């Protein structure tokens, strides 16, 4: 599979995973091995530095990049504070901005997210904002210095797949930045579909963590993401072939 590049860092896998919701934290390591995921998100609010057996950081292999998120933040200001804490405690430069003011569907607040992106990108963070798929907001996030755009497929934890498919297609078509689908992906087939559409990566948490067998499910998602990506690349090649066809279908219009 072709590599994904985010903030100068290369990733061999286009599947991002999460640390929340597992029945046992010790499942995280084998899940990462089987899914080949190289980027994992974690909520700073959940990181417990006082007790080694509780500290989630001790369950994540060093070769996997941490994507701390600002879960719990309701304003740009709070998200910025959380991001700074995450960096100080050694979670690296990546930050997923998650600003939520709706406890029912957990929809992101685009306006506050843009504000936080601007501040954090300036401070040298590699910012991945979780957002409601809206083209104008996506463009503002690009201007604000985001490294990728993370639109939701459907509400967090709903496992309803790509309910926002058409909006996401518009983002993929019109944005320069990689589009990473976050939230709503409940099945490997949803992930494959997202990748076929041209998403740069997908983030899957509940669908893996809450499955009967998170390790096996991690592998299933890995295969689905690969298949989807290959299909997307193959389709591109196909479109190119048409464009370069030696005898154009409409060539007669220009014949003398």
């Amino acid at each position, binding site marked *: 599979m072709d590599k994904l590049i985010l903030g100068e860092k290369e990733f061999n896998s286009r599947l991002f995973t999460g640390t929340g919701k*597992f029945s046992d934290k010790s499942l995280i390591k084998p899940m990462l091995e089987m899914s080949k995921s190289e980027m994992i998100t974690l909520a700073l609010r959940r990181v417990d530095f006082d007790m080694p057996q*509780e500290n989630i950081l001790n369950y994540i292999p060093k070769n996997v990049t941490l994507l701390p998120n600002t879960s719990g933040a309701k304003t740009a200001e709070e998200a910025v504070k959380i991001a700074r804490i995450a960096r100080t405690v050694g979670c690296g430069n990546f930050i997923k901005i998650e600003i939520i003011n*709706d406890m029912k569907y957990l929809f992101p607040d685009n306006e506050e997210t843009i504000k936080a992106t601007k501040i954090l990108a300036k401070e040298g963070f590699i910012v991945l904002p979780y957002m409601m798929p809206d083209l104008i907001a996506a463009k503002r996030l690009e201007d604000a210095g985001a490294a990728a755009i993370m639109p939701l497929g459907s509400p967090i*934890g709903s496992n309803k797949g790509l309910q926002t498919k058409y909006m996401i297609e518009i983002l993929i078509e019109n944005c320069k930045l990689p589009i990473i689908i976050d939230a709503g992906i409940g099945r490997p087939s949803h992930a494959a579909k997202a990748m076929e559409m041209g998403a740069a990566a997908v983030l899957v948490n*509940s669908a893996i963590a809450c499955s009967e067998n998170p390790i096996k499910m991690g592998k299933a998602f890995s295969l689905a993401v690969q298949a989807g990506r290959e299909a997307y690349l193959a389709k591109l090649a196909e479109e190119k072939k048409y464009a370069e066809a030696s005898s154009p279908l409409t060539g007669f219009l220009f014949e003398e």
Partner: protein
Amino acid sequence: MSFYDVIKKYEDFNIKEYLENVSYEDVEKTINKENLNEFDFLNLISNTSLEYIEIIARKSQKLTKRYFGNTISLYAPLYISNYCTNKCTYCGFNKENKIKRKHLSYEEIEKEAKELAKTGIKHVLFLTGEAKELVSFEYIKNTLIILKKYFKSISIEIYPLKENEYRKLKNLGLDGVTIYQETYDLETYKKVHLEGQKKDYFYRLDTPERVARAGVRQIGIGALYGLSDIYKDAFFSALHAKYLMDKYIDCEISISLPRMKYSESKFKPYQKLDNKKFIQIMLAFRLYLKYIGINISTRESAEFRNNLIGLGATKYSAGSKTDVGGYTKENKSTPQFETDDKRDVNEICNAIKNRGYQPVFKDWELII
């Protein structure tokens, strides 16, 4: 608008009669729905639905996993004063009761906090009686400031405050407020609350809204089962939660089902909530209010709490002491009620793990 306007809408609605007429077909329809209404809630707590309890439990488990994962959050209560000027007929702290009273000094609060923090607990709920001279707003505020040094999330279960007081506490880092209506039945409420501010049913009923407007993140509500008709209290707590969830979408609402326990008050419950009904009501909360937090305290026995893991509960108290000074064990007071689950934090963690769930100590970061 107040939640009381919602209650009034059901003035002429006979819950008992409705429940008696719930058919198997009604329950089946409810189970197959994705979005339930208040009548579906009643269908689920009817005797008819008991036959479907396994299917309902599975649905509840699925929903809970979807929104909360395979996790149970842990917290512990910290009683800081049991002086009270009120006369609630069912409460052990009632001013008429000749009990051992204790009011912690700031040094003692700090000691208790240190002791409790040693168990690994990160989320704390501190409680007091209502004695405004002694347990003043200033005292509450300073307690909060002390506890911030030891815990990541701090909630209160104290007498109702004014909106700007909640806001002041929120700005200092207060994360949650628990305020039980005790009973939604106005008549009963008047009969059991004889003195003090608590006499005012309406002021108490509107408290969660003052909390929400002040911007506090978490609000816990509930009724004390046994004071009045359990079906009516279950129904109105569910409606109250729904009302708050719809009106204040930025707040996290959770609900509890405390049952009347033995206390110094020697109060005789009006009606008993048995285990089967308890579970029926809890499952109905989950199906009706998908995203709600469900809180189970150590009032319940260890065995019963073990069985509730995975059915819909999301928060457990652990290693609780319900007497003032209980953690340091220095001149303890009489407890508010007797706890049933006497296991320590470690034992509770192991029980949660044995059921295939992850106990979560920390789920909040204090950034103030």
